[in-house]
């Protein structure tokens, strides 16, 4: 897509560990248009977080990483390749033009600084505000993300807030400088079920109000239907299916997506008692990174597998103008 806000092309990310090379992301392409919400789904270990971290080059210290491919990002001044941009330019993009909300707000906030300081800091950095202005703006951001009595909360330390409030504070920090792209990596997984929906709604509201692009990583297919324009399904470091969210959810064109849909949590409503939530899982486990056979990576767990599936790597093919599937038998999936 030429006018994409973010266009990841053939991204490969490998970690060089003592145990060997882990090819965490293996040729992923995906794009986010301005104002669009793209959901990225897939089982644990499929490479969702690594893909997201690659965009801002946020790998950990001590990680020996090699990346390949391009991550094109449309800045106001023109497109840049984030994988090869110099650190100084990268720093103006981080938090200013692209922001990220992580999974665990408790660990993501610095325990020894107040919420106000942690939000104000990013405003001072990117918008050049003074101390007082930045704090005032931080208070209004806290109000925007639905925190009551923001003025008082500015002085709170992270441990004095609930998990949900901490995530709201993280969101306030992320939207502080009006980024063009927001990445949310399972922003509700660490939270109470009752809070999860509120946080998702908040993100969606802000995204719509500000016209940000949103890359939303989740396990929860239910959510995808609610908030995403498009969905990208990942498996073993690759994209296996992509397309408009409603269409993919209604009629998946890859057996993996089909299986994910089949094991969505189902809620049994009990008369006057607690609902029980049943989660079934896809039988088997995804291949360890690097332990992929010659053919389809999903073959070992696929209900539609044929001998030919194991012969050669399966390419990602366009089905219509806006749908992709990495299955030989895409047309037969029902």
């Amino acid at each position, binding site marked *: 897509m030429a006018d994409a806000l973010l266009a990841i092309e053939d991204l490969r990310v490998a970690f060089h560990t003592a145990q060997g090379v882990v090819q965490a992301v293996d040729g992923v392409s995906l794009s986010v248009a301005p104002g669009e919400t793209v959901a990225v789904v897939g089982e644990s270990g499929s490479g969702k977080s690594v893909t997201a971290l690659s965009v801002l080059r946020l790998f950990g210290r001590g990680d020996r990483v090699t990346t390949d491919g391009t991550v094109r990002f449309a800045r106001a001044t023109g497109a840049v390749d984030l994988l090869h941009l110099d650190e100084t330019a990268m720093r103006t993009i981080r938090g200013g033009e692209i922001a990220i909300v992580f999974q665990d707000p408790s660990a*993501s906030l610095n325990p020894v600084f107040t919420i106000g300081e942690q939000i104000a800091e990013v405003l001072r950095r990117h918008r050049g505000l003074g101390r007082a202005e930045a704090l005032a703006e931080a208070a209004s951001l806290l109000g925007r993300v639905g925190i009551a009595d923001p003025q008082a909360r500015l002085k709170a330390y992270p441990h004095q807030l609930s998990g949900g409030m901490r995530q709201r504070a993280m969101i306030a920090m992320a939207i502080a400088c009006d980024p063009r792209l927001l990445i949310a990596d399972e922003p509700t997984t660490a939270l109470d079920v009752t809070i999860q929906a509120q946080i998702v709604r908040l993100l969606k509201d802000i995204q719509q109000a500000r016209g940000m692009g949103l890359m939303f990583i989740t396990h929860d297919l239910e959510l995808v239907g609610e908030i995403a324009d498009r969905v990208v399904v990942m498996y073993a470091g690759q994209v296996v299916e992509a397309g408009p969210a409603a269409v993919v959810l209604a009629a998946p064109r890859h057996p993996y997506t089909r299986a994910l849909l089949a094991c969505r949590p189902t809620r049994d409503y009990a008369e006057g008692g607690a609902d029980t939530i049943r989660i079934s899982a896809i039988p088997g486990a995804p291949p360890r990174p690097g332990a992929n056979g010659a053919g389809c990576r999903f073959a070992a767990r696929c209900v539609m597998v044929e001998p030919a599936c194991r012969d050669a790597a399966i390419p990602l093919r366009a089905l219509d103008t806006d749908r992709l599937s990495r299955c030989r038998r895409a047309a037969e999936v029902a």
Partner: protein
Amino acid sequence: MAVMLARRLGSAAAAAFLSALAVFLLMRAVPGDIVGQMLGQSGTDRSAEAALRAFFGLDRPMHAQFLDWLGRTLTGDLGRSWYQGRAVTAMIAEAFGVTLQLALFTLAVSTLIGVPLGMLAGIREGTRLDTAIQTFNLLGLSAPVFWVGLMLLVGASAFLGWSPPFIYRDFADDPGENLAIMLLPVISLAILQAAAYSQFVRGLMVTELRREHIRTAIAKGLTPREIYFKHALRNVLIPLTTFMGLILVQILGGVVVIESLFSLPGLGRLILSGLQGRDYPVVQGALLFVVLIAIGINLLVDLLYAVIDPRLRP
């Protein structure tokens, strides 16, 4: 907070009492006493010996001696030196001035060298600079303070033709002389403590820089400077406070050796010379004083902790 403070004070008081008992018993566990010293090998005049024992109160039962000493100590009276006849409190006050200067200088020097070195090694983890600093740490930690002091003394006179002044002078009396006297003792003590600091801070930094909130700081577009010296340092400061207290207590321990090597009239020398003469009031008083200082430092560190770590505030 008040409850915590009360509890801390209570346990500090208990520790102080136990230390007083230990100091008292330890002193008496050392073979020989002042009477033996005074009479020497020669005389075995039973009656003179008994008279002297009675004079020093050594003929009374142990518990009576202890309670007597403890009671007077509680009123701030540590008795008089059996040799010099001077009040032990005055002798301690005089000697403590020397020890305190030595300890604080050492603390300052080792902090100023060790903490930045450790930060640097942690930040540059895995580089040659890191290896170099860690080598220094290892050498500093394994070299005995006494040996370092001796080498410095010998080295300075052999290669620089310089020796520290003989006669001790107060800083107030003669700052130049005083600093010249303090130079080598401070360096000998500071090398070990700087190495300890550096090692400790490096470890803290390495762990800290792997924490998730550091990734958040990077994702906010902060500069390495803000990340290292604001976000990481502020967290490292919390355990560092405890460590600083520990270092100070260790320095007080090391001071004894160094004071006698460089003949500085501090607490260490006071205790050693008192010990040689079995001058019980002096040794008991000075030892108890040192222990109380250590307890005080720990108490202070605990309180400081509550100030520095927001998680300990209500």
